[in-house]
């Protein structure tokens, strides 16, 4: 037990828990905390808007697998992170937000910069808590980190009234974290594994759909091993991208609304469908009737409430992906599947028939994405924003390692790409980090580039500028008789000039050849670059399944 102020205890607990970066913006309620931070080795990364700071912490968490910390002041500082908190929660990213609060004596009086952030974030957090006793600060910080980063990971908000951070108390830094209502299940039951193994062993046409749970649990290697034992073609959800290397012979790529044809045709043909760490989002399944009509579904998830929520399973595996897969592999490893069986042959035929064209002469979405892949080292991290470019990247960008393709999947937060890339760079400074953005999302948070430059987190941004809110425009072309409403953007901003004022290098390319040159230069450089690529505003992203249709109802051409 040591006597100290709440602020010092807060910083000391973060240090003790291995936290190295705090993203945020200060304010009146944070003055004691930021003062204590001066004496710490934790690096403070000042943002330009709290939403961006929250996305930075989220990108940091997704790239590193460690909790990302965002720290903002009370009132507007707190409400500004709401989008960032919801984004992290929907994608099960371990984000811990510390919000300043007015002193306890003023809570509930509508004091200056007071907002009930506990009430506001109740339905978008895994857990939230207001600390009301300085002696409880070590407990609250440890509990927040523990809950965010265990079980199904998620977002946590801890509210720190100013007087609690100023007052002194006897602090217990060895305090135990024990919630009787929170015991995440890690190891699945042996009988669940036995059942699933039996079904998989009997399967003639097994297919795996891997989700974000595989990435989050670091189980990519185990998933690939299981797929190889079973000779099971493996599709991924958007969040599962990276759980199997895109160039693996069994990889089918993305399935769902903008899934690749080989994935969307093979998933419904399965007789046993093993869904691993995916929650059957409507964007992954399309119409549930056409999803896997003849398949016996095995659903593996760490979150029991996801099992049988959208799709009824024949059997479940409730537990952490890595532990579950190791148990499954142990039970099926003696299976000898022929490399030349009917199913295996069909997989190879399918994959051959959907080879990508290699016409990279014109500036098209797929060509730009392939050029980015060619220019980057295999372990580079790519973040995307949200919209057409995101789906282009999801379809065409090859990922070789988990946690190297980061995207806002569940909430679909435009403006996420640039700040998340800065967070990823902070987590892994030796990696190349590139953000693929559209003009709509880039313009929402491009001001974060000043943090990238001023705090030395050099990133590359490839800005696909079609002067449209392109995905909505695509829906209007396809489903609203081409009536454009609220999607055209005739603003006059010149992005290459704008980013120069932030201190970044900006360049607009006019040909694929020039794009390749600029990408090579940017990858070799140690400063922030924005490459603007003018796109055809009429270009649609294919394949696409119209909303409400089944996986096989694929649109492929204009």
């Amino acid at each position, binding site marked *: 037990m040591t006597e100290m102020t709440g602020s010092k205890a807060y910083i000391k607990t973060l240090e003790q828990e291995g936290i190295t970066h705090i993203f945020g913006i200060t304010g009146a309620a944070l003055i004691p905390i930021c003062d204590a931070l001066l004496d710490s080795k934790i690096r403070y990364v000042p943002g330009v808007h709290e939403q961006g700071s929250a996305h930075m912490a989220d990108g940091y968490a997704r790239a590193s697998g460690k909790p990302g910390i965002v720290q903002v002041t009370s009132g507007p500082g707190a409400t500004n992170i709401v989008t960032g908190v919801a984004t992290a929660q929907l994608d099960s990213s371990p984000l811990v937000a510390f919000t300043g609060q007015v002193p306890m004596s003023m809570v509930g009086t509508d004091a200056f910069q007071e907002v009930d952030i*506990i*009430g506001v974030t109740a*339905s978008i957090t895994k857990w939230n808590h207001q600390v009301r006793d300085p002696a409880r600060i070590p407990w609250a910080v440890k509990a927040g980190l523990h809950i965010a980063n265990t079980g199904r990971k998620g977002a946590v908000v801890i509210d720190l009234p100013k007087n609690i951070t100023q007052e002194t108390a006897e602090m217990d830094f060895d305090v135990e974290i024990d919630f009787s*209502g*929170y015991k995440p299940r890690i190891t699945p039951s042996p009988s669940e594994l036995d059942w699933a193994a039996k079904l998989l062993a009997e399967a003639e046409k097994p297919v795996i759909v891997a989700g974000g749970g595989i990435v989050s649990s670091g189980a990519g290697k185990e998933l690939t091993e299981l797929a190889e034992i079973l000779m099971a073609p493996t599709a991924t959800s958007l969040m599962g991208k990276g759980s199997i290397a895109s160039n693996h012979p069994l990889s089918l790529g993305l399935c769902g609304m903008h899934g690749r044809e080989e994935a969307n045709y093979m998933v419904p043909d399965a007789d046993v469908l093993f869904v691993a760490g995916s929650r059957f989002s409507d964007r992954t399944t399309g119409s549930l009737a056409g999803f896997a009509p003849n398949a016996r579904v095995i659903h593996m998830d760490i*979150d*029991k*409430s996801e099992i049988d*929520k959208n799709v009824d399973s024949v059997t479940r595996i409730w537990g952490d992906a890595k532990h579950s897969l190791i148990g499954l592999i142990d039970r099926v490893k003696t299976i000898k599947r022929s490399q030349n069986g009917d199913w295996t042959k069909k997989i190879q035929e399918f994959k051959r028939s959907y080879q990508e064209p290699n016409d990279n002469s014109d500036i098209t979405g797929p060509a730009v994405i392939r050029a980015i892949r060619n220019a980057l080292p295999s372990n580079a991290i790519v973040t995307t924003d949200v919209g057409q470019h995101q789906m282009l990247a999801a379809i065409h960008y090859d990922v070789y390692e988990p946690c190297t393709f980061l995207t806002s999947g569940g909430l679909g937060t435009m403006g996420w790409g640039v700040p998340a890339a800065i967070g990823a760079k902070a987590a892994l400074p030796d990696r190349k980090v590139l953000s693929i953005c559209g003009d709509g999302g880039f313009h929402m948070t491009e001001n974060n580039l000043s943090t990238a430059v001023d705090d030395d987190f050099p990133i590359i941004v490839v800005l696909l500028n079609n002067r449209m809110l392109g995905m909505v425009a695509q829906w209007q072309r396809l489903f609203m008789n081409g009536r454009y409403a609220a999607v055209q953007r005739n603003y006059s901003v010149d992005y290459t000039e704008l980013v120069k004022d932030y201190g970044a290098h900006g360049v607009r390319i006019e040909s694929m050849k020039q794009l390749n040159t600029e990408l090579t230069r940017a990858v070799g450089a140690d400063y922030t670059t924005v490459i603007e690529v003018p796109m055809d505003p009429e270009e649609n992203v294919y394949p696409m399944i119209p909303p409400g249709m089944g996986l096989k109802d694929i649109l492929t051409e204009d």
Partner: protein
Amino acid sequence: MSLSVISFLVENKPGVLFNISNNIRRKNFNIHSITAIAGEGEDTTRITITSRGDPKEIDKLVEQMNKMVDIIIVKRLDPLRTIQRDMALVKLHTADPMAQEEALEIINKYKGLILDIKPDTVIAQITGSVNEVNDFTKEVTHIGIIEAARTGITAIEKGWVTLKEP
């Protein structure tokens, strides 16, 4: 649609009930009744909530709430193995002596207690299943109900089954 009974054991601290009702609202269920009281030692609170809905959908809601950190245990009670009780305090207008006599008869029939008698009012305490309390209310309606307050359902499972020991 039938009433489902959901029982909770939760941490006794501010905001837990808010989080529960917020979750129920989000899934578009309406709370029909709610009873809550802190347990011995006051570390935990036992809550009983009833709501109408497809039991299968209620089960999904229960799974969602089971994830909440401050909820220790939550389950939908099996209606066949559950005892439910509701209590009503009913104030009747009994200025007419005939009405008073009839009121006392009905209260007796439902094994109710008479808590207060004034020249023109009677307050009855009726305990029983929801249906029994509803039936009582219907029978005394013509006498004249001035005001009624009900506790809502509380429930417990039969035999050795408990919330803690399923």
